[in-house]
């Protein structure tokens, strides 16, 4: 298992950092996840940087370089779709070829999933919102674990994400 460091890609803040923090910019109108309880993600297979100044990236065609000498068979992403279920291409690059995989990024307000394209990773029962009078909205908001099964064992040199401003990536782990 290789946790990919993607901090240099981060351009967005989805998790509130304190109880009354107004730093969240997951949606353009300033909504996102409340501060999670301590250790929420500690035992997971992913680095979720919820306490940092930035904790995810909005996809603008980002290329994430992978520095790893091992071959892997699965790429797992922690991600979400902002205003809908988005069906986009993710390109896995090797030294001499690229392969495109179709990936579904589920709508962030889903709190259950019927299809096997992704799993719920984390759900908050409410949203923090700068546009709401009370500062919170009683609506579930989730992060999803999305699995890309590679066609074969692959020594990945980069992962290219789509240009879709509604797709947000929080963590990448290779298996």
């Amino acid at each position, binding site marked *: 298992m290789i946790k990919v460091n993607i901090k240099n890609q981060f351009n967005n803040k989805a998790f509130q950092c304190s109880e009354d923090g107004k730093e969240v910019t997951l949606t*353009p*109108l300033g909504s996102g996840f409340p501060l999670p309880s301590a250790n929420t993600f500690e035992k997971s297979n992913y680095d979720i940087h919820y306490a940092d100044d930035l904790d995810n990236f909005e996809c603008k065609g980002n290329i994430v370089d992978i520095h790893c000498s091992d071959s892997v068979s699965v790429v797992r992403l922690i991600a979400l779709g*902002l*205003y*809908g*279920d*988005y*069906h*986009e291409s993710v390109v896995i690059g090797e030294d001499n070829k690229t392969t495109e995989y179709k990936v579904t990024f589920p*709508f962030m*307000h*889903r709190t259950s999933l019927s299809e096997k394209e992704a799993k719920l990773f984390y759900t908050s029962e409410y949203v923090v*919102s700068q*546009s*709401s*009078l*009370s500062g919170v*909205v*009683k*609506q*579930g908001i989730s992060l999803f674990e999305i699995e890309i099964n590679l066609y074969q064992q692959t020594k990945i040199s980069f992962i290219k994400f*789509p*240009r*879709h*401003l*509604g797709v947000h990536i929080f963590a990448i782990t290779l298996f």
Partner: protein
Amino acid sequence: MLQEPQLNCFEVLIAEKLIELNIDYKNFFWRAGLNYYKSQNNEKNIVNVQPYYYDYYLNKYFGIQFIETINPPIEEIIRDQGEYLIKLDYFYLNYCHMFQKNHHVHALIIKVKKNMIFVQDNYFNYQDEVEPELLISWWNQSQKHLNCKLIDLKKAKHTSKTISTVDAIADNLKIMTEAAQYENYENYLSYCGLSGLKEMTTDIVSAIRERNFIAIDFLLEEIDKICRSRKQAADFFRLRKRQNLENEYLNSYSKWSNIFLTLMKAVIAEKANLKDIEKQFKEIVHLESAIIDMLQKEFDILDSKVRD
């Protein structure tokens, strides 16, 4: 409670009603047209993605009567048991986050039973019993800003619950290519399909140049309408196993989603990257044109098979 981002607050309630009648709602939402209505007296420009309102299609395909009354006295309606779709102003709905923020029409279901009102609001993910007095207050206050509507959906007669794929393809082709499909509105110029798209692009580019972000904000809701309709069409053609059309509509949905988000950010920041926006619209014109070609090709093949 059904929650689907490709359905707006009213469409999701129609979908609930169709599910209740054992009809797959994806067979109902598949019209991905475009007609741009440009106001001649500084009113909001409008986009329609289908020529008629839902009442026409519900009756045509499923024999469901859509009985709508405007501003009826709600206190009289709720004296008897019944279930209705209602439209009011979400400014007064104390359970939702738009409470006392903006005035906008919003739809929900009310079920009247034994002097209690059960409210179901799929869009804001709320369901609860409310006192009749609270509903009456929402209703009466909303009328200060808009016309409240009470809609009774009744299954009137048996009709086919499915539409043929060839008809859906033909209709989607017509509503992108035939201006006569759409009604004309007084004081509005009407542009259908690709010419509507090009006209809308010109208006958005001009608005950005003039830094008229209010005009773009007005159009965001219309762009969202186009965007959702492309996802609805993709879901329909997925159901019908027409993968090439599904993929094309998904591509279109993806591009429209990006345009929506780009413009939304521009409105909030009051600045925009004009070149990027022009590029995105150029791509969408190209893609919508490719969908029209594909619909024509698919229609020709299916139509010749039907005639054989």
